[in-house]
């Protein structure tokens, strides 16, 4: 009995020891498991930090934005001193917000970054606007002494009329130079206008604010600028460098040039000789055909301009608002041969 008891005791003892060891092992494993879970949790947390910061970023950004907007809207009608103080505060806040955005660039996606930038720009714009409205700057400008500017019925436009009248912001000296070096026609309606070779040779020619006019430029200018043209027919000899067309509609243009840069133009036909490339930007309904026109000194003017008569890329037009390769831009077309003009009167 004793022996058996002792044996069983011994067994129990070894059993206890075994159980103890087992427990220890289990505990170790459990601890290891817990550690592992902890580690994973930590790893996950460190991964998800960006996500959390993203939420934090958008909510903070939004809050600040609303705050600034309120500050700005509270400016209207307030006292001058108060407005000044509030505007200053808004400026500081916008700067701070920009800094916050800059600091967050690392974890923001392109889209969010762009959105935030756009929002900031809007804020900046409305700040400027509020400032202009509430605290208008004293306007200072040199008086335009030119006769052209004195002429009545100068069309009101969103951009300053780019004729010889000095722009208020530009330094006087520079614009004085502009007046002496530019030649062309400004603010005319329903007229036949001609410039001879001597008048425009190697010069910058500007035609602006013309409507229902027929213009013939018989020579080779250095650069040709056409601005605010409506329902005109403009023919020009070889232009040594670029032709700029801006705000032009319902017109017919024809000239040889090195480059053609067309902006904000609608429903206009261009009979073109271009040795490098024509481009359009913010245009609709612009159509192209090869240049044809002749006047006695055309050959001579071609030589003076340095343009090659053999290279004409009139049909290759780049549209800066249509960057998709493969599909043609809807903003310009080629004039079918049957519809082209065949003579100028």
């Amino acid at each position, binding site marked *: 009995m004793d022996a058996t008891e002792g044996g069983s005791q011994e067994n129990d003892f070894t059993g206890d020891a075994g159980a103890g060891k087992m427990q220890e092992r289990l505990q170790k494993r459990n601890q290891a498991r817990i550690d592992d879970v902890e580690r994973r949790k930590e790893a996950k947390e460190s991964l998800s930090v960006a996500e959390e910061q993203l939420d934090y970023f958008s909510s903070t950004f939004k809050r600040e934005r609303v705050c600034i907007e309120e500050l700005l809207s509270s400016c209207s009608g307030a006292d001058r001193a108060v407005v000044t103080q509030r505007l200053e505060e808004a400026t500081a806040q916008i700067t701070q917000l920009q800094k916050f955005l*800059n600091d967050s660039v690392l974890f923001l996606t392109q889209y969010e970054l762009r959105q935030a930038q756009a929002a900031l720009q809007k804020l900046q714009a409305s700040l400027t606007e509020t400032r202009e409205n509430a605290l208008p700057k004293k306007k200072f400008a040199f008086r335009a002494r030119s006769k052209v500017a004195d002429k009545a019925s100068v069309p009101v436009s969103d951009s300053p009329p780019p004729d010889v009248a000095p722009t208020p912001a*530009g330094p006087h000296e520079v*614009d004085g130079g502009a007046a002496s070096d530019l030649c062309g026609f400004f603010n005319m309606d329903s007229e036949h206008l001609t410039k001879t070779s001597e008048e425009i040779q190697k*010069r910058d020619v500007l035609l602006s604010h013309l409507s229902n006019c027929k213009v013939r430029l018989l020579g080779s200018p250095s650069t040709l600028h056409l601005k605010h043209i409506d329902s005109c027919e403009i023919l020009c000899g070889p232009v040594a460098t*670029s032709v700029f067309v801006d705000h032009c509609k319902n017109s017919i243009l024809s000239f040889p040039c090195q480059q053609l840069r067309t902006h904000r133009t609608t429903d206009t036909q261009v009979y073109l000789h271009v040795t490098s490339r024509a*481009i359009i*930007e*913010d245009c609709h309904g612009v159509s192209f055909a090869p240049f044809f026109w002749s006047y006695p000194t055309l050959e001579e003017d071609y030589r003076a301009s340095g343009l090659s008569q053999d290279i004409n890329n009139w049909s290759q037009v*780049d549209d800066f608002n249509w*960057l998709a390769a493969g599909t043609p831009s809807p903003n310009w077309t080629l004039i079918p041969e049957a519809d082209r003009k065949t003579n100028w009167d």
Partner: protein
Amino acid sequence: MGLLTILTKMKQKERELRLLMLGLDNAGKTTILKKFNGEDVSTISPTLGFNIKTLEHKGFKLNIWDVGGQKSLRSYWRNYFESTDGLVWVVDSADRLRLQDCKDELSALLREERLAGATLLVFANKQDLPGSLSKEAIREALALDELKSHHWCIIGCSAITGENLLAGMDWLLDDIGARIFTAD
């Protein structure tokens, strides 16, 4: 050894510079780039997108980025600002009508934080044209003398004849070099 020293050392080993060439459309950015690289400049068309050229000059490896200046492309300029060592601003000296535009775009650029450390070289281009403004007139029109935030220099040049292009680039490299490579 501070972090700055390490960075300087790294840059020094590479001697590689990133130059960004910007300006209004028709200023002559691509022409300058091609002339500098010795390519044909007679058939250049308005840049739709950007050009990049890598060339060696004065022992530096230059990565020159030339980004189109059309209005619709200007909003993309910001994509090229990162780690720019030098900004080359090209002005069409004959384009009096858009000098104000030119000034506005330049001052917007100079407010960019990512261009804060860059040296500014202004090329008053097209000096070969009879009606072009002098570099002094351009300097005044762009109000460069009021500029305190950047090292700057204005140089009259002609991309067609190549006049002064090298002089401008040499000044730019000297200025950047003095800033980056002699910090230690």
